[in-house]
């Protein structure tokens, strides 16, 4: 009798979680961020229901500042897999011209991401939303439940989270409340990469090193992805061989200099690296405990 490897066990747990939501929640949605964790989550959703299709749509909260390659990838992937893809943009923010260059990362993230997500969940009245967050990403996430309950105002109350013994999840909610579900809770960054390799999952090419035009903004190398970047900044662009460890809004995503052009190279680099994954994200650096604060306010 063969033994299950750690990836086998993680996969089986995730399939169980995804199925449980489909079976018990009225109107679930899978939040798709186009990143590598989302790619794994999507792959798991396909596996969970095979030969049926996953009985829920995908939703992307588009801040309008994502890398262009991400958007192309998103549209192609949804079509290939036969998913309904909902794209939500905070039109108020677009009208007010909110963006990272003009308003800074805090306002931009709040308006175009946090607020936009709340709008979208309210609009479609989703009672459950899958997210690709992992407990190893950040300290306050380590205590996040797999089923994380939100009030009708989308607030997260650390004191009211439910105990989750075994694999028995209480999915019941009151009118207007919703639940965020994290099937990848127990995966680490290395697990994600190993699984992508084992299952041959396609990811956005931005994860692989290539010569790309970058500028230094607030001490971080960011890529020139379109001409909304202020002219004086754009004019400082130099071409470097870089890749991205996480993907988000291009002005808020720090590039790392690298020549890792294959999955093996990336994993090798990761195993030998000395900085953590979230370091390239501008959002965490504000203050100690900032992620916990954001989460209470409704950031995914």
């Amino acid at each position: 009798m063969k033994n299950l490897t750690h990836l086998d066990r993680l996969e089986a747990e995730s399939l169980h979680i995804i199925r449980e939501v489909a079976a018990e929640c009225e109107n679930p949605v899978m939040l798709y961020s186009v990143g590598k964790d989302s790619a794994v989550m999507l792959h798991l959703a396909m596996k969970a229901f095979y030969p049926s299709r996953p009985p829920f749509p995908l939703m992307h909260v588009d801040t309008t500042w994502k890398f262009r390659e991400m958007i192309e990838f998103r549209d192609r992937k949804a079509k290939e897999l036969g998913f309904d893809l909902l794209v939500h943009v905070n039109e108020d923010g677009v009208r007010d011209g909110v963006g990272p260059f003009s308003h800074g990362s805090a306002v931009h993230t709040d308006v175009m991401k946090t607020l936009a997500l709340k709008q979208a969940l309210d609009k479609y009245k989703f009672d459950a939303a899958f997210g690709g967050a992992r407990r190893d990403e950040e300290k306050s996430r380590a205590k996040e439940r797999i089923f994380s309950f939100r009030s009708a105002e989308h607030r997260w109350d650390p004191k009211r989270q439910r105990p989750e013994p075994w694999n028995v999840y209480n999915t019941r909610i009151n009118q207007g409340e919703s639940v965020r579900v994290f099937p990848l809770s127990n995966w680490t960054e290395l697990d994600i990469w190993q699984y992508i390799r084992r299952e041959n999952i396609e990811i956005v090419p931005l994860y692989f090193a290539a010569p790309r035009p970058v500028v230094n903004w607030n001490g971080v190398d960011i890529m020139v992805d379109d001409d909304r970047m202020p002219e004086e900044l754009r004019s400082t662009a130099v071409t470097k061989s870089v890749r991205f460890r996480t993907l988000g809004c291009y002005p808020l995503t720090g590039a790392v200099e690298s020549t890792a052009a294959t999955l093996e190279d990336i994993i090798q680099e990761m195993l030998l690296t000395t900085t953590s994954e979230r370091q390239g994200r501008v959002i965490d650096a504000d203050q100690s405990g900032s992620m916990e604060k954001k989460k209470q306010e409704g950031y995914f």
Partner: protein
Amino acid sequence: MRLNDDLIESDIAAYLEKHEHKSLLRFITCGSVDDGKSTLIGRLLYDAKMIFEDQLASLESDSKKVGTQGENIDFALLVDGLTAEREQGITIDVAYRFFATDKRKFIVADTPGHEQYTRNMATGASTADVAILMVDARKGILTQTRRHSFITSLLGIRKVVLAINKMDLINYSQQAYDDIVDDFYAFADELATDLEIQPIPMSALEGVNITSKSNETDWYDGPSLMDYLETVPVGDRRLNTPFRMPVQWVNRPNLDFRGFSGQIAAGSIQPGDRVKSMPSGKQSTVQRIVTATGDLEQAIAGQSVTITLDDEIDCSRGDVLVSAEDPSEVSDQFQARLLWMSETPLLPGRRYLLKMGAKTVTATVNAPKYGIDVNTLNDVPAKTLELNQIGVTTLSLDQAIPYDPYDVNREMGGFILIDRMTNDTVGLGLVDFALRRASNIHWQAMDVDRSALAEQKGQKPAVLWFTGLSGSGKSTIANALQKLLFAQGKHTFTLDGDNVRHGLNRDLGFTDADRVENIRRVANVARLMSDAGLITLVSFISPFRSERQMARNLMADGEFIEVYVDTPLSVAEDRDVKGLYKKARAGEIKNFTGIDSPYEPPQAPELRIDTVNNSPEEAAEVILGFMREKGLLNGE
């Protein structure tokens, strides 16, 4: 990741090949901050090189600011997550940590040690293979060590590391260590006969016997903590027990395919194996084990799969596919150990939702037989269970479910209780045994009569007949009462003008004849509902004594309760919530009770409610008290 593997640099592909086949060990750490538990976990992460430079930098600056180790790195800060906890210096919730070595991946459930966090520890223990019990070498086995041992063994952990920490503070004294170990063995005998205990002397702060054996304890010949964690068999007891798979989801992409999706809870399965679907007991043969990457020749405990069967047997979510040779029992009455997890105490007799595997049913939890003092393990008298209390009780379910005793299979015998009003998870339960085995009872053809229907709902039927003037407050009180009854798990229904006049009695007006017919129909509907076992609240002006008497005669003895909502006309007219009195006075409404149609007050109602001096909520409480007094709220 313990980056001592040269393969990462020389041959990454070979390295990954090797690391894809690591096993997974889940363990829980129990102890208080004072015992150095967080320091131990921080140390494990640090030594496994799971701390990156940027984290280390913030750790160093935090250590100087709020650390308790002077200029040294305070490893505890690495794992104390939430801001509030960091300020208070305690770990409140279960936190999950991850690290990997060359041999294994580890998931650590880091739980707080104080008694008020018993529920958190139980949650962390429910999925763990191994428990690490932290003991301060200077203090020896304390009350809390006993408590932690009890909780982890209660939740089914059979492999225990007795981590005797802070050995540096007692000069690595072998004698002190031996005394503590002896103490613990003497105590552990009471817990479970099959505990496997590994005592290890250590200093988390100094890194002694954590990742490697230290010279400081040359008298100790056991493994270091890491050696133990890397080599202890991930004893899948579940593999050697009979096949069980709770059906999570029926997979039906088209008419030609019907599969049953679930995660295998025990044993293994192959195409051709005979299985039963429980609770129906219908048999079939496994046809295929379907996964997205191809059919499997065999599937084992822990895997999530989809199974198709040879026959079209009835099987839906919540049923369990089990080995036909060794099926599970089915029952609707259990004795169980219960850990209460809510600030609101257990209400014996109340109905809660019980979820086990993929099945959710209604369960009445009876008063505990006794409680268990988690510190002494003694039985103590208990009428209820408060937050973090553990007790032994019985439960009656509204339907029979398949189960195995918890000590045989965690997933087939572990359940949660959910409060039906708040939806909170309020209890964690472990099935010990069934009080009667429904599977062994041959069901007799039985007339399902009115008493059976009422008994099934755990209540006595009653008709509460609210009579009084328009605007007297009948519906408001009935509504308040219904909320109270519902909260107690009673099955109720309200009949009032709104839901009857628009449908059943749409053809009736407000002449005297129509009023009589209106009440006749309503009374008959109420009778049918009480036959169905419901508590029915009827809220109609019903102005005439004779019709109310007619209704009373229709009901079984003692089931008709006339509630006279006695509001003087002047008061009702003053309130005039719907503006009807105004219209009646203006002559726009004809035959209005109290204005141009008579109201005959009851002469001997069961209850008279004064709405001038009582709020609707108070009135509802009065009625509830009356029902309780008459024994109408007791189940069978």
